[in-house]
């Protein structure tokens, strides 16, 4: 099978730090690929390079076999790649609904929408409420609340809801459950599996080994700015994975 998304020899330097050091990367259709690694290993940089948030200094990215080069995250989104960033990327003063639909607002039907370009707030709010309910973010009282008034976990939930609702080719999530409670994390995992059922491949960065092993089809182990190996969660133990990513053990095979 051809990878839907493929990176080869990606390099990204920040001043003197080489955050990505000739890193390779593959994502196959319909799979959940987990990316694990130490803090500062370069995982976020990798997915930023894929989603257009940073431009790699070297290397090539192929989407469905065609080379792509995103100048900004909007182009990546238009190509169907939807991302939850570690920093969440939300406008604090705007409402939850506004944030969910940022960049793809719904307009009123008829002349109000086409000529006067009026937003269809009721429709947007209804949709937003549904999506948040799916995630079990029940402590949010008001969909028109400004995002800055949400707790850390609630914000995370909104960001995940946004990516899951709109991704069409690839969904990328950078530590989506980091700030979430037990209940909310479980919902996100269910959501990830839902998304997979819709046929979309997912890249999941997470430090939570049990979750990773529970949902991932393959695990990309990132170390010192590059891919160390790819392992199969059914054939390796969590303990192995931890040992590889921290440098305690060196993997003998290279690909899963």
């Amino acid at each position: 099978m051809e990878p839907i998304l493929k990176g080869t020899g990606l390099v990204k330097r920040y001043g003197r730090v080489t955050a990505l050091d000739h890193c390779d990367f593959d994502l196959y259709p319909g799979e959940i690929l987990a990316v694990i690694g130490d803090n500062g290993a370069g995982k976020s940089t990798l997915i930023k390079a894929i989603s257009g948030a940073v431009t790699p200094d070297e290397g090539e990215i192929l989407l469905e076999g065609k080379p792509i080069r995103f100048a900004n995250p909007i182009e990546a989104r238009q190509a169907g790649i939807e991302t939850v960033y570690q920093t969440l990327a939300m406008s604090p003063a705007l409402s939850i609904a506004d944030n969910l639909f940022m960049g793809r607002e719904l307009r009123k039907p008829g002349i109000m929408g086409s000529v006067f370009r009026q937003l269809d707030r009721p429709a947007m709010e209804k949709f937003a409420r549904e999506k948040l309910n799916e995630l079990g973010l029940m402590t949010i009282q008001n969909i028109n609340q400004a995002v800055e008034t949400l707790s850390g976990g609630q914000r995370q939930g909104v960001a995940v809801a946004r990516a899951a609702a709109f991704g069409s080719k690839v969904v990328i999530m950078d530590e989506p459950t980091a700030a979430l409670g037990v209940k909310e994390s479980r919902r996100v995992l269910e959501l990830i599996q839902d998304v997979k059922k819709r046929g979309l491949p997912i890249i999941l960065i997470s430090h939570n080994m049990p979750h990773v092993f529970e949902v991932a089809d393959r695990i990309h182990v990132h170390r010192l700015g590059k891919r160390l190996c790819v392992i199969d969660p059914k054939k390796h133990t969590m303990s192995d994975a931890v040992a590889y990513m921290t440098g305690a053990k060196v993997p003998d095979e290279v690909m899963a």
Partner: protein
Amino acid sequence: MASEAKAATSYEDGLKGASDKVAEFHEDTSALKKLQHWLHKTPSAVPLIVLVAALIIFGVVAENFFKAGTLSVILQQIAIVGILGCAQTIVILTAGIDLSVGAIAVFSSVLMGQMTFRYGIPAPASIAIGLALGTAMGAVNGWLIAKMKLPPFIVTLGTWQILLASNFIYSANETIRSSDIEKSAPALRFWGNDVVFFADEAVKNSGVKILYAVFLMIVLVAIMAYVLRSTAWGRYVYATGDDPQAAELAGVPTGKVLIQVYALAGLFCAIAGWVMIGRFGSVSPTASTGQLGNIQSITAVVIGGISLFGGRGSIVGMFFGALIVGVFEMGLRLVGTDPQWTFFLIGALIIFAVAVDQWIRKVAG
């Protein structure tokens, strides 16, 4: 292995039967709380209150203040600042600032005038050219800010000087007289026409005159209030000002939005330039709007409760802010305050109005 993972999360069994209800907190619904909440939700409410207070005070202190004529004069005196304020508002909502608004306005008015009188282009075409050039000046600001990533304060500080100098050089400091304009290019003076209300046919010069310029200002504020609140583009403006990185990652084309905002601001300034011709009758390159238009419009914006850090506030607030300044200036003039004292008191007003705003928000918070 996956089975091992299942075991590690077995405690999640406790989730079965977890509550699905929205948390219901105790809500304080006293009238006071409701008022506070409303004030909090309505950023233009505070300037409105200050405005009403100022009207009442001057109505008591200054005779001749509460006359329809006086009030209509106040409106026409703030027409230009109000239109420049529309430009400044959208720029400040993106966390920018535009020091060049006044220079664009004056230069555009000079361009419209010179097109007509120096090159003999028909007035309506000159106006169109002037509006286009004003928009272009704004777009250059926007391009430097969005593409070159230069700070708005610097860019517009530079273009302010550049445009003002160009204005003087190009016009050779020549004022085009009102009588010439009246004769051969009345279109330039369009916004100086007026509608008279309550006129007594028998008495000459009776009734209340409202300039077209005043209506234009109100219409522009209304349109922009709609655009900012109810269209996607308006949301982008707020998002860009709020947290540009987040907005960019969330899919807002912040670069494009910034260029559009500054270009639109340029258009508003050019409109203000056109209005200036109508209001003053003549085209004068030395109009003080070129030097002071930026500070005046920023003052209106901030008294109107719009945050200089971007992303918060409403254009209707700016309108009230401009009115507050207009009422103050007129009121103080009628009371007979010395110009330096007026200057002093407007300074105090700026601080006071913003302090009241902060205070109400804090109490309401």
